[in-house]
């Protein structure tokens, strides 16, 4: 959930009040040792490592224990003899005891040997490497645009709270945020690709494009417009609300009055004093919202048949290609966990208060 008002509301209340009897108090218990970056890094990296392990456990639990025998689904249309079944089970390592399967799975994942896809009959690692650039291109471009747009509008909106601009922007943002991503994508395709015919319907490149670099780049850019537009439209409102409420928190501060008293112009006060301080709490929220970035890109890729990891994930649901689902589950989940770790490390460098505590 990336609704700005709730996330921002939650974050401020996050810090436990001082003087509470009992319970974990972060600052004081580790007060002596917490001064170093090493300890800070160790604490957060340790937490992330535990989370990653939990992801591995839960993926094994979901896909091996709840899901049952994949052989039934693999052979659903063909009649197979019991010997063939046994051979298949042995090939997939399913005849071994559960703890050994679990160990094989952990070892395989850690050495990036993710097994073979049922539908493509190829190593999953190769599939992921092949499709990763498309996903990074789409969600990277979309996220940069959404963050930039959201922060820019959010700053102005919060600065002039209650103005017509503010009301209009918040209303537009909420309206787009309320639209289901897949539906907005379908409408965008209908209008821009079908009715107006100015953009391609789906995919990432057209087969007829000459192979030289520039023609390819232009072609991909042309295909990229509609998915990025859809993705940005749905996601930017979250950043807008985060930035807006962060600016609102700063707006009554004494240092802004001081800056004004020095004779700075209004937009100088905003740009040089309010924004840098308001950006601080938003950094973690942006990284925390990475889960919703993954959600958004999966749906967007599915609507536009964008050849990335998200559409691979969706394709694999109905095959069903369990090894791929499992590998992507681990990949998507661990990337959000690592993103949060990055945010925490970044925080050490940009927020001096953490270093002092």
């Amino acid at each position: 959930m990336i609704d700005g008002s709730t996330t921002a509301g939650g974050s401020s209340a996050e810090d436990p009040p001082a003087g509470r009897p009992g319970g974990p108090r972060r600052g004081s218990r580790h007060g002596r040792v917490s001064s170093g970056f090493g300890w800070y890094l160790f604490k957060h990296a340790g937490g992330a490592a535990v989370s990653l392990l939990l992801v591995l456990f839960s993926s094994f639990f979901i896909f091996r224990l709840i899901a049952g025998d994949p052989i039934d689904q693999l052979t659903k249309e063909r009649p197979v003899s019991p010997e063939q079944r046994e051979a298949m089970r042995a090939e997939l390592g399913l005849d071994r005891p559960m703890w050994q399967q679990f160990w094989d799975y952990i070892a395989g994942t850690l050495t990036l040997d993710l097994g073979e896809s049922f539908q493509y009959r190829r190593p999953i690692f190769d599939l992921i490497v092949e499709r990763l650039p498309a996903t990074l291109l789409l969600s990277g471009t979309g996220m940069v645009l959404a963050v930039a747009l959201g922060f820019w509008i959010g700053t102005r909106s919060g600065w002039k709270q209650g103005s017509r601009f503010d009301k209009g922007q918040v209303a537009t943002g909420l309206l787009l945020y309320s639209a289901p991503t897949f539906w907005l994508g379908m409408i965008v395709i209908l209008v821009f690709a079908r009715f107006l015919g100015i953009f391609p319907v789906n995919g990432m490149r057209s087969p007829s494009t000459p192979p030289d670099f520039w023609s390819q780049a232009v072609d991909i850019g042309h295909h990229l417009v509609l998915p990025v537009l859809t993705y940005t439209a749905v996601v930017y409102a979250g950043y807008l609300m985060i930035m807006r409420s962060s600016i609102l928190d700063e707006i009554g501060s004494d240092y802004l009055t001081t800056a004004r008293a020095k004779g700075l112009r209004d937009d100088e006060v905003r740009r040089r004093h309010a924004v840098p301080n308001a950006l601080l709490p938003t950094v973690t929220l942006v990284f925390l919202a990475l889960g919703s970035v993954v959600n958004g890109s999966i749906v967007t890729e599915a609507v536009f048949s964008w050849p990335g990891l998200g559409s691979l994930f969706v394709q694999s649901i109905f095959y069903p290609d369990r090894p791929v689902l499992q590998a992507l589950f681990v990949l998507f989940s661990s990337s959000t966990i690592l993103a949060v770790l990055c945010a925490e490390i970044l925080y050490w460098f940009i927020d001096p208060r953490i270093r002092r505590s």
Partner: protein
Amino acid sequence: MTSTTASPRALHLSSKRARRKLARARRRRSFARSWTAYRSQRTGMVGLVLLGAIVVLAIGAPILIDESQLSVTQATGGRMEPPSAAYPLGTDETGRSILALTLWGSRLSLLIGLTATVVAILIGTAIGVTSGHIGGWYGWIALRISDWFMVLPSLVVAIALLAVLGRSMATTITVIALVSWSGTTRLVRAQTLTVQARPYLERARALGAGHWHQMTKHILPNVLPLVLASATLLVPSAILMESSLAWLGLGDPSVVSWGSILNRASDNGAVSAHAWWYLLPPGLAILIVVLAFMMCGRALEAVFNPRLRGER
């Protein structure tokens, strides 16, 4: 039986009744205060009116349009016909009225969204209050687990679980609740910690109040307003999640929801057939419901969260 033995008991009873009456009056007053604050917010009122209208339509759907109109075999219209007098919003690929489908779809989308939210809120509040109040190892583990759920991409987890568990309404509700309880837990836990530090809880502890009494009589009433606001904001995300899952084909195949209508629309090439009447109604319905809930939720949040007071 003499009056001397009965009187302390009667006294006790009457004082208990008086206390309850007092508490009720206090609650009524605080409700009236919140309602006045809520009423002064225009967006919140617009959202409330919209929601009321939608709920009335959803409940009244069987009166307005007969269920037989949803049956594929009894459909009378042509294949993907544009809007006409007989079919104000056109027809789908089997000749059913889109208006009937959208109206009936509201029942399921709302039902799943609300039920999933209630389940998520119950889990979230229970874990939030207990982890904040009891603390210690239990609190630490509960916090870690809710953090973990918070970070994971919810749609990925939901898809993985539904792909494995099979498609039905119950699994959809369970899965949506499972991926959405963590936010409430965090919020409730933080609020619990704030309440814990207040002197009246120390007084209650000093008078010998147990954990259960402290949690239900002192912490919960203080946490509930925030829970209400967060629940109102959780419903739209549950409805959006349900529609995404149903659109991907992971919904219950035997029922009609807005997401499943759009799933059939894309499976049957409504976009390439330029059948805008097939795509617009269910999508706009989702948008309006989500927007209405968000308007109410934001207004409630402004009422209950002092930090946001003054915002409109």
